[in-house]
């Protein structure tokens, strides 16, 4: 048996349906109080991974542990530790927002004296004052917010949110991520799947999935470096640049890549363990004067494509994937 202090761990986990493997060789260790983002196109295995983590599925190979226990055999009472928001939230159209939240509270064993707790959660998701509104009369955004509140209602130790930000506006998405971070800071472990690759920046650990396998796992910074071959900087000069500048830059130890990106700008990739941005100007000499250096804003689409490959949206065995399913945040 695998010994680990991780909140969630996958050790060589695979899952198949009939004879088709939809997930293979998954290795993950998610420390307590961490946000792990599962990023990948539709059919890449994100939902299956979450369902293996929460005990909905049993692994066909390898071992899954959740809070030190096999989630597939976890006792019923211990399941109160899990908060799960499925891709399609379970809400009842004929019930009001309050009644829906109350139902989920009951299912998760929240004590009868819960009125204050429910009010706080509705306030959190900015649905206070609309308690009596029926779900059937609510917008898609309101439903997503209510679903999130329902997942949080019993204050679980581990939250598994399957595409919680799908279909909601950027402002609300940002608020969701603010709250996710706050939950993490309080010690909650969060597993969040998303098709929006830019949301990787909000996570502590990102697992990029494709074809039912992990293409890359690491912190956002690590993934950036992995994708670009180092830290990407724009070096701006006071005069127009030419090939000689690029040659000088490539000659510096720690510079992995250099190419002009504008009349007076060269984009370089450096190994931050060897070279710091501030060391570039002194090493160029007097021929070229550096006006300044700036870290390039990460294009997570590029990172994803770089790490996962352009064929990421090809069909995974037994699980259809479409090219446009590789999500890009608006």
């Amino acid at each position, binding site marked *: 048996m695998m010994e680990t202090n991780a909140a969630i761990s996958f050790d060589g986990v695979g899952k198949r349906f009939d004879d088709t493997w939809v997930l293979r060789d998954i290795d993950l260790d998610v420390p307590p109080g961490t946000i792990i983002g599962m990023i990948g196109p539709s059919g890449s295995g994100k939902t299956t991974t979450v369902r293996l983590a929460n005990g909905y599925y049993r692994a066909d190979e390898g071992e899954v542990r959740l809070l030190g226990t096999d989630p597939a055999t976890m006792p019923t009472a211990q*399941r109160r530790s899990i908060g799960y928001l499925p891709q399609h939230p*379970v809400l009842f159209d004929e019930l009001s927002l309050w009644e829906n939240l109350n139902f*989920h509270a009951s299912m998760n*064993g929240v004590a009868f004296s819960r009125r204050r707790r429910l009010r706080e959660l509705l306030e959190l998701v900015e649905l206070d004052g609309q308690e009596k509104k029926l779900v059937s009369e609510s917008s898609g955004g309101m439903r997503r917010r209510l679903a999130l509140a329902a997942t949080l209602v*019993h204050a679980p130790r581990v939250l598994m949110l399957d595409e919680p930000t799908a279909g909601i506006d950027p402002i609300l998405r940002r608020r969701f991520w603010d*709250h996710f971070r*706050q939950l993490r800071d309080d010690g909650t472990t969060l597993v969040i799947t998303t098709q929006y690759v830019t949301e990787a920046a909000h996570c502590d650990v990102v697992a990029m999935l494709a074809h039912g396998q992990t293409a890359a796992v690491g912190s956002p910074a690590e993934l950036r470096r992995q994708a670009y071959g180092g830290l990407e900087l724009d070096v701006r000069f006071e005069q127009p640049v030419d090939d000689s500048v690029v040659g000088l830059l490539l000659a510096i130890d720690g510079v992995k890549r250099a190419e002009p990106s504008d009349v007076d700008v060269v984009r370089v990739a450096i190994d931050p363990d060897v070279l710091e941005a501030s060391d570039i100007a002194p090493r160029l000499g007097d021929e070229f004067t550096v006006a300044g250096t700036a870290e390039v804003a990460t294009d997570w689409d590029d990172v994803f494509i770089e790490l996962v490959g352009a064929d990421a949206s090809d069909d995974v065995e037994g699980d259809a994937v479409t090219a446009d399913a590789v999500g890009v945040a608006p």
Partner: protein
Amino acid sequence: MRDPRPDTRRSILAPRFGWLVQLSGFVRKEIFEIARQPRLLLVLVVGPFLVLALFAVGFDQQKTVLNTTFVGPPDSVYEESVAEFTDDLGQYINLREYTTDLVAAQRQLDEGDLDLVVVFPTDPAETILSGEQAVIKVIHDKIDPIQQTTVEVSTQVAVQELNARILERVVGATQDVLVPYEESLDRSAALLDELSAAVAAGDAPEAERLTGELETSTGALATIVDLSGELAAKVGASDEAQSELNELSGSTTELSDAIGRLAESGDVAERDIEALSELLGVVRTSGDRVTTLDPSVVVRPFSGDTANLQRESVSVADFFAPAAIALLLQHLVLTFAAMSLVSDRARGLFEMFRVGPIGAGRVLLGKFVPFTLIGGMAGAALITAVWLGLDLPFRGDPVWVVAGLLALLIASIGWGTLISMVSRSDTQAVQYALLALLAGLFFGGFFLDLDAFRYPVKAIAWIMPVTYGTRILRDVMLRGNDPALIDFIGLGATAVAVIGLSWVLLARRLRVE
């Protein structure tokens, strides 16, 4: 956004009675969901009650009386007889007319204006005298087996009644013959007195003449009595009546033989006249007994008198109401339970159940409690409505009705949960629920008696909760009796079987794959 989390998780989770917390969630959800769908309530609760009410108000048993035209020869005895006995057969037939036009009558039958055409034989006497029965033909166009049976029974009863009336008249005629017999008897007695006077006066010629007249008179008496006896035997008169006639025949023959012997000898003495007087007295006594018999009693020695042990009569609507209530309640909760679980599954709630802190047993409990409450309220409303609104009798102990309804509801919900486990969609669940409704309607004793079915088909009746529910409600409400224990045992066994099977199937669905 601020963090609303409590200090510790322990402060918000129920330390004990978690099942009660979860159960309360199910109860609220199911009741609110149904209450928020007034059309559903209208269709499933108010609608059936209105159907029941319309049935009770609109059902007219008189509509089963058959409109009938009689066809026979003009100015025949039938016309008068028809008018007489259709008064007595009013519960079976409504006399439209007596006509000689068979073609017109058949046309009316074809056009649906008539239910029956009764055709009398044109010359029944000839047929009867030839030793055959005269046939009364009954024409109808019913295809409903129940109506066909009604026609056949009505025809049988009507022909029997007609035969009885004719026989009554024949016997009445026999009595008419017997009345001259009495006059003849008086004449014989007068002749005997005159004969006695002639013998006393020694007037031999007069005595011989009177003896001859007396022989003729008593011979006629014997003949009439013999004929009456034969007729009575042929018409099937009672044994008692025939015995009386035989006795009269014997005494009359003895009198006639004695007078015959006296006439042959030509020597009449006083003692002979005394002996004849005694024999004449015996004949009179026997004759008196025969003539006092009622002709209708001779023809119909037996009559029927039905006695119902039930304290009060039960109308058609009364009889069907308990079965309708049981069937409606079965359908109501069975449909709710089936639809609810299928809907939960479609919404993804089963995924939550599988991941969350809840097992198959609690999910089922969460369905049984709210639907039993809803069914109980619907049942109470229906029974109260038919009791007060339709004047349905409620003769037994209400506690038994409550117990019966509770058992019926639990078993029906069990069927609903089982249906939900084998249904893949809402539509399929509704179809199965309708099948259960049809099975309940045909095999549950709603309008067809359970004994009308053979095994193994009859077994369907015993797995339908409505079968037991109907029997319990009829026993308690209509008969005023306590229900049979076997009905509760049957309901209990059905409930245990379907709930157990549902549990196994649900647990399998919620098991980790």
